[in-house]
C-alpha cells in the first residue's frame, strides 16, 4: 500500500525536476546575453537536483527512486554544465563590455556628426553633438538613460524612459557663431571631430581585436 504512494511521489519529483530544468533552459536562452539571471537559474536547478539526490540516498533499493536518482544525476550534470557555460559567457561579456559600449557610442556620435555635415547649409539648423564621456560613464554604470526622469506620484504612473540610451546626452554645440540664417555648423570643427571620432572608433576596434586574439591564443594554446 505504501509503495505506490512512493512511486507517485517519485514521479512527482521527476516531473518537478523536468519542469524546473525546462524553466532553467528557457531562462538561460532568454538571458544568455545578460548572464546573471541565467546563471542564477542554472545554479538553482543544480541545487534542486542535489537536494533530490540527497533525498534519494535514503531509499537506494527501491526501483522508482533508483530511476529518479539516475535522472536527477543526469539533469544535475546538465545544469552544472549550463551554469559553467553561462559563467564563462558572462566573464566574456564583462571582458568586452567597455569596448562594446565605446563602439556603440562612437557609432552614434558618427551619425550626429554626419548629420551636422549634411546640414551645413540648412537655414536654422543647430549643430548637435554627443557628450561621449558622460554617456560612456552612464552606460558602464548601467544608469537610467533618462537625464530628466519623470516625477511619479502614483505607483501606476508610467516612468519616463528615453527611447535611446544616449538621448539624455545629446545636445546642441555651444560656442559656435551662428550665421545670418541661424545655422551654427562650423564645417572645420565638424570635419575635425568627424575624423577624430573615426580614428577613435578604429582604435576601439583594434583594442577589441587584440582582446579577442589574446583570448583565442589562450584557448588554442599557440
Amino acid at each position: 500500500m505504501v509503495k505506490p504512494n512512493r512511486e507517485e511521489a517519485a514521479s512527482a519529483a521527476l516531473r518537478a525536476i523536468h519542469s524546473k530544468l525546462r524553466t532553467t533552459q528557457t531562462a538561460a536562452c532568454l538571458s544568455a546575453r545578460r548572464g546573471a539571471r541565467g546563471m542564477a537559474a542554472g545554479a538553482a536547478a543544480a541545487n534542486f537536483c542535489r537536494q533530490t539526490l540527497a533525498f534519494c540516498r535514503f531509499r537506494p533499493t527501491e526501483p522508482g527512486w533508483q530511476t529518479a536518482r539516475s535522472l536527477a544525476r543526469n539533469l544535475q550534470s546538465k545544469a552544472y554544465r549550463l551554469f559553467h557555460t553561462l559563467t564563462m559567457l558572462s566573464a566574456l561579456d564583462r571582458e568586452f563590455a567597455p569596448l562594446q559600449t565605446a563602439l556603440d557610442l562612437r557609432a552614434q556620435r558618427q551619425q550626429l556628426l554626419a548629420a551636422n555635415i549634411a546640414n551645413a547649409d540648412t537655414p536654422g539648423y543647430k549643430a548637435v553633438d554627443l557628450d561621449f564621456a558622460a554617456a560612456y560613464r552612464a552606460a558602464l554604470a548601467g544608469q537610467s538613460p533618462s537625464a530628466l526622469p519623470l516625477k511619479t506620484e502614483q505607483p501606476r504612473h508610467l516612468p519616463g524612459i528615453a527611447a535611446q540610451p544616449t538621448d539624455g546626452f545629446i545636445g546642441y554645440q555651444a560656442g559656435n557663431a551662428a550665421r545670418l540664417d541661424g545655422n551654427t555648423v562650423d564645417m572645420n570643427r565638424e570635419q575635425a571631430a568627424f575624423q577624430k571620432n573615426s580614428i577613435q572608433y578604429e582604435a576601439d576596434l583594434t583594442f577589441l581585436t587584440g582582446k579577442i586574439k589574446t583570448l583565442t591564443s589562450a584557448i588554442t594554446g599557440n
Partner: protein
Amino acid sequence: MSLFTALDVANSGLNAQSYRLNVVASNLANANSAVSSNGQPYRAREVVFAAQPLSGTTAGVDGVTVAGVVEKPGPLKLVYDPGNPLANKDGYVAYPNVNPVDEMVNMISASRAYQADVNVMNTTKNLLLKTLTLGQ
C-alpha cells in the same frame, strides 16, 4: 547597425547638394533668357534646405531635404535694345536677375559640401568594413 544611418544621412546630403548644383546650372544657362515658359523673363532660383529626421534613428540625427525652390526677388536687368522684339515701349528688354558671381560662389559652396558628404560616406564605409573584420 547604427553606422548605416550615417550613410543615409550623407546620402541625403548628396541628393540635396546635387539638386542645388542643378539649380545653379539652370541659373547660369538661363542668364540671358529674356523669356521663360511662363512668358515672363527667367528669374534666378534658389533651393531652400530643411533638416528632416530620418525614420528609426536617434533623436538629433537629421538628414537634409530640399524644402522648395524659390525665385530670387531682386529687380530684373533692363538693357536698352530697341531692335529686340521683346523690348518695351521705351526700348528696354528685361533680362534675368542672375548674378554670375553669386552663382559661382553658390556652385563652389555646393561642390565643397558635396565633397564633404562623399568624405563622410567613404570614412563610414571604411569603418564598417573594418568592423566586418573584427577579431581577425
